[in-house]
């Protein structure tokens, strides 16, 4: 009986720590206004996607990368893709239209804020990067490098709706803690 009690306690403790771990990622993005970012992108989506001349190629490679990500790798992949956009895509894109520039700036600064929030989770060891997550990110970078820099940047910008929908889906239960 004592052995049964102990094992039950252990199981309970493991379950609780697991739920805390997975809920920790969701709590990470609690104060981000995803709706506002999606709205900003919708306003410029058509104009950006019209500039994309390589229709048969994809950089995010949704089926190989985003769709195959396990729940435990979500935080790492989110962090890596945010860095991809902030460090490469937004910088490589030259936007002459002030209206579009304003919206891209809004999204870029919001991504910067999301990165900061995730960094706090990383410090709390809630954002571990396994090999599979790192591989998925590398595919995206490789795809980007295969195109000319301006075309690659415009194409990646055009695929933002896919990335934003993915973040929304995986960080859905963000009710106030």
């Amino acid at each position, binding site marked *: 009986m004592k052995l049964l009690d102990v094992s039950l306690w252990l199981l309970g403790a493991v379950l609780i720590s697991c739920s805390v771990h997975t809920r920790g990622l969701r709590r990470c993005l*609690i*104060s*981000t*206004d995803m709706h*506002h970012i999606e709205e*900003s992108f919708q306003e410029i989506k058509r104009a950006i996607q019209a500039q994309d001349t390589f229709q048969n190629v994809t950089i995010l490679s949704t089926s190989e990368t985003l769709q195959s990500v396990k729940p435990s790798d979500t935080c790492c992949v989110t962090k890596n893709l945010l860095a991809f956009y*902030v460090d490469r895509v*937004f*910088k490589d894109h030259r936007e002459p239209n*002030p209206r579009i*520039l*304003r919206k891209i*700036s*809004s999204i*870029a*600064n*919001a*991504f*910067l*804020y999301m990165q900061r929030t995730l960094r706090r989770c990383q410090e709390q060891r809630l954002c571990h990067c396994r090999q599979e997550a790192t591989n998925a990110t590398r595919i995206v970078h490789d795809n980007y490098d295969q195109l000319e820099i301006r075309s690659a940047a415009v194409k990646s910008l055009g695929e933002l709706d896919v990335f934003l929908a993915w973040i929304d889906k995986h960080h859905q239960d963000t009710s*106030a803690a």
Partner: protein
Amino acid sequence: TQTFTVVLKEIWTSLIMWFFYALIPCLLTGAVAILPAPQNLSVHSTNMKHLLIWSPVIIPGETVYYSVEYQGEYESLYTSHVWIPSSWCSLMEEPECDVTDDITATVPYNLRVRATLGSQSSAWSTLTQPFNRNSTILTPPGMELTKDGFHLVIELEDLGPQFEFLVAYWKREAGAKEHVKTVSSGGIPLHLVTMEPGAAYCVKAQTFVKAIGRHSAFSQAECVEVQGEVLPLALALFAFVGFMLILVAVPLSIWKTGQLLRYSCCPAVVLPDTLKVTNSPQKLISCRKEEVDACAMTAVLSSEELFRTWIW
């Protein structure tokens, strides 16, 4: 050495003269050569509405226009030469600018202003400390409490889509539990609780801004009371008395009406005593014209009787 000193002095004097000659055109173009840049830039932010204000540039007899540009932290780190023109503030007269639509992320933003007069523009004047919208002042929300019968209805101030409200309410008695309800937007009346008669309820509210993860302070608690059991008791008593009256009055009036109807349509015919036929020897006389004689004879026959009764 004396010649050397003299030569040096001459060179020095010519240099000073040339310097002044060069200045003359500048002095001749007018009293104000360069338009001064606006000073004392500051941001006043309350409830996520951000207002950039500065000291106006006064040029007598002229109207000066201002333009505002901003730069998020992303731009300042990765593309520092890029400044974005403000959505609403290009060439305006007022020395203030609503930058709410420009500050769209919770990161530090640099803001700068310059004055324009005709073809001349001043230098850019930049905010000394970058502004982050998480430093906005959040005020307790205005709320209106109304009673709809026993229902307590609350209407909160409409502060825009970024605001959520937390409403706390409790019964005003010792040891009462505090309930909390989340309201997603203001400006709409909302049913809070169905109140118990005779109790007082108190309500207070605070705002929550998800984008910056901050709450305002709670508003002052407001209390409402509901009428107690006195009124229902009086009503019940009144109703009971009324019912009893009805219980007595209705049969009485039915009976009375019945009687009235009986007398008016079907009265019982009763002969008065004086007309009643008893066992009297006097026979009833039926007089007809043809039988006048018979009547007269009959009358003569019983005259004795008649005389006797007349006497008595």
